């Protein structure tokens, strides 16, 4: 069971969270102006990387907030946790943490 750092409540057991899919996929501001292919890309296409993945979690049984996490999909190492709306942090070269 993952130990997920909630930006508000600190590290909590995965049981308190729900998964929200890939992060940084913003809903187009004006969907009507988007062509079908781009809309399908927005709806369905995800990067599914082997390695560091920016993903959304919600502290459902906690503060209720959605936030983003950088998790390595191979090792499960979590390199960063940051509130929704903030840009994806750059990782230090060793991939172990964020650049300060």
């Amino acid at each position: 069971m993952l130990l997920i750092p909630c930006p508000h409540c600190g590290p909590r057991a995965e049981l308190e969270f729900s998964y929200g899919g890939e992060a940084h996929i913003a809903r187009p501001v004006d969907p009507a102006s988007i062509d079908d292919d781009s809309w399908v890309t927005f709806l369905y296409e995800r990067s599914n990387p082997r390695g560091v993945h920016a993903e959304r979690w919600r502290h459902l049984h906690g503060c209720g907030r959605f936030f983003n996490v950088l998790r390595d999909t191979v090792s499960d190492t979590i390199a960063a946790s940051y509130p929704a709306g903030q840009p994806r942090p750059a990782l230090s070269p060793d991939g172990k943490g964020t650049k300060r």
Partner: protein
Amino acid sequence: MSGRFRAPSGGRVDRAKPVRFSFDGQSYQGVAGDTLASALLANGVHLVGRSFKYHRPRGIVTAGSDEPNALVGVGADDAHYTPNMRATQIEIYEGLVAESQNRWPSLRFDVGAINEAFAPFLSAGFYYKTFMWPPAAWKRIYEPLIRRAAGLGRAPAKPDPDRYTQVYAHCDVLVIGAGPAGMAAALAASATGARVFLCDEQAEMGGSLLSEKTAMIEGQSAGDWTAGALAGLAARANVTLMPRTTAFGWYPHNFLGLCERITDHLAGADPKLPRERLWQVRATEVVLATGALERPLVFPDNDRPGIMMAEAARIYANRFGVLPGNTAVIFTACDSAYRAALDLKSAGVAVAAIADLRAAPGGVWVDRARAAGMEVREATVVTGTTGRLRIDSVNLGKLGPDGRVSASETIACDLLLTSGGFTPSVHLFSQSRGKLVYDEALRAFLPGTSVERERSVGACRGIFDLEAVLNDGTAGGSGAAEAVGFAGAAGRAFAVDGDSVGSDGFIGVTPHGGDPSRTRAWIDFQNDVTENDVKLAIREGFRSIEHVKRYTTTGMATDQGKTSNMNALGLVSQTLKRPLPQVGLTTFRPPYTPTTFGVFAGQSRGDLFDPVRKTPVHDWAVAQGAVFENVSLWKRAHYFPKPGEDMHAAVVRECRATRQAVGIFDATTLGKIEVVGKDAAELMNRIYTNSWATLEPGRIRYGVILGENGFVMDDGVVGRMAPDRFHITTTTGGASRVLTMMEDYVQTEWPNLDVWLTSTTEEWAVISVQGPLSRKVLEPLVEGIDLSRASMPHMSVREGKICGVPTRLFRVSFTGELGFEVNVPAGYGRAVWEAIVAAGHAYGITPYGTETMHVLRAEKGFIVVGQETDGTVTPDDCGLGWTIGKAKKDFVGKRSLARPAMMAGDRKQLVGLLTVDPKTVLEVGAQVVADPNQPIPMIMLGHVTSSYWSATLNRSIALALVRGGRTRIGTRLSVPMPDGPIAVELVEPIFYDPKGARLDV
């Protein structure tokens, strides 16, 4: 006396406390401190089971959890019976009942041993080759036969009466294994003040020190030092000692599963105690001190009872005071077996010879053995053994420099001890996803790169010398505490007076000179895999160890190949002439040892399996004899049968009462969300398909929510309580889904909107009063609300009081009749419900359940999300196109509705179905086709989504999704069923009061 083979003194057992137990119906005596294995050996019993495939007689091989053979069933009755327990781990108690497995009619005479005669047909992969013809025979003959023959042990037939609990726990440093390395680590880590857990799978902590007789630690005997160390640890408030606790699984982020056995070793245990407890431990740092497992040497006929691991025999002699035989032959490739031979000899076992695989063994242990008068045969192998139910002789062969083996002598014995060296226990490290590295010098895989916050100490990382082990443990414990953030870890160096046994060993099959296809050298005892099986697999083209494993099943038994994996690997390496690390290593998976289902279930059984959500009206409905159904986690009244009524009769009565007079229905389970804020209407506009800007306070609207993919996700009525306040209702099952979706958009897409969401599902009890007389029932109870047609039209909401408590009173109908939904604070729900029932008595008020609710709504063609929709249905498909606010520029899902496929004319559309025979009620899910006589597979046009008997219409009705359904209205289609096709006519999906006249009253 507790058995002929019990030494008069020595060991850690209490000879003053005899313990009686039974094995296969025969009564034996052991002593307190015995395992079932040590007690049986003390009574001269080696034969304890029959092997999996060939039903070969098998004996006790090890003294620990790596035991492959001695699997027994334990339990005096069928409810308490547990199969496949390792006799080496079972602590005996007064009255223990154990039995051997996989034999019939008896252990000594087992009919299943006939399989031996068919051995040539049962080689690796036999089931892929043997049972091919005729094809039809597989299902009817072969599979049932194999299933009957396969498997070990028998499952208990009765429910498990024991309690099991699960508890979460946290520590700074978790030390796994309480041998010398683990104890030293726990001492060092806890000295810093860190919270330390020390767990060990055995009843007694101390590990290898419990059978150490000669080495001195800090001037103390190993036993005294262990006792002192454990007492010191127990005295520290920050230390938790967990004996009988197996760390069986490692899950991400240092979350470990530990199974503590609490009552299995007790006679007449306190019934309030759980049998086992699952510790779900989150550790900041983990120290692995899991030790090493002795590796058998593989040679022909190496599986007879009386053939044991040398170190296991030493443990039985030193720790349990048990002599595992009278006359022993030792077959070894390392020094530790000499140490065992010396200890056994001093305990009273004659050592007839030591056959050493090495050409020129030497050193202090070999010298001591020779000095003690033992015959050491250099470059000598075992070429075979004899003895049916117990070994009676060993054939030795001389191993020439060219690798050839020449027979040399036969020695009579009743015990053959083997040792191929030690394999570090890297199971948990590997489970943690750490990378193993192969150490050529040690011929072992050792922990390499870590993924989790952990470190290995002692034998599990290839350090075998006791002094080095203790100091490695200390360093590991200190390092772990420091990594957590505790300072002041003191370096400490232990002084040990004792001789190291080195690290020689052998991997693979020892040279034996025999024809592998005629000899049988067992690699995996538990799954009956031989040298020949592995070689056959390689001959048939399997190269990867993962494939060899699956084809031969080596290492796939309940012991996960603890004693066999390295030898299988070595044999593949020998056969392919490829270096061992290149052959690879199979993956270690949890659990480390077999773990009960009970401890995984824990408290989640019976009434506590899931929360059972009940409404405030539940107990009233129970008292009325309601039959309930599960809707998500809720219990909902399904129908209210009167004496003698079945469901059909009850529903007919409930429907009639509601259509003709008044019915009362508990709608509390509906999801409710309060949407509040200046931008509440704007959020509603963006989430729902409908337009909300024009909805005035005090009015209600039916709303539909789509996913961003354009498909109907949920629906429900929404009341506008104030310009900045909406009262949303959702489906029972969709409540949390809708709230999560709305929170998602508010938090992540539109954080600038001034609007907040609060779940009020449980705040309100919802009492639905429906039927032409509903107004008459409610009018006398309400205060401050005018229920009249003029003042409170259909689809409006008023706040006031009912029965003296606050209410949000909705005039709304899911039945097609005049109706109200009375929302009151949940704590008043029961009282208000009863008051309404009392007030309605004069009008024949009738409680109805979800079945009647469904019939009534289906008569009106109202959809139910999840019944008429399945995640592929657009609003237009299910006749809800009218809910879409055409003027709105955007709402969730709108863009998807403009995709070409979403507007295709032949999409499945909601229609009504009337069976040509009005008495026939269709089955929900049945397919709709044009021509029932077309060849199979038929072209399926759609399916029935709802189907009921309508008492009101005195005929069956159904809703269906049918391809291009709206253009087919008026035509006939067919529903093919096993008893023949049913002709149906497609009609508009509304069967009753299509103009809605009954609502306008």
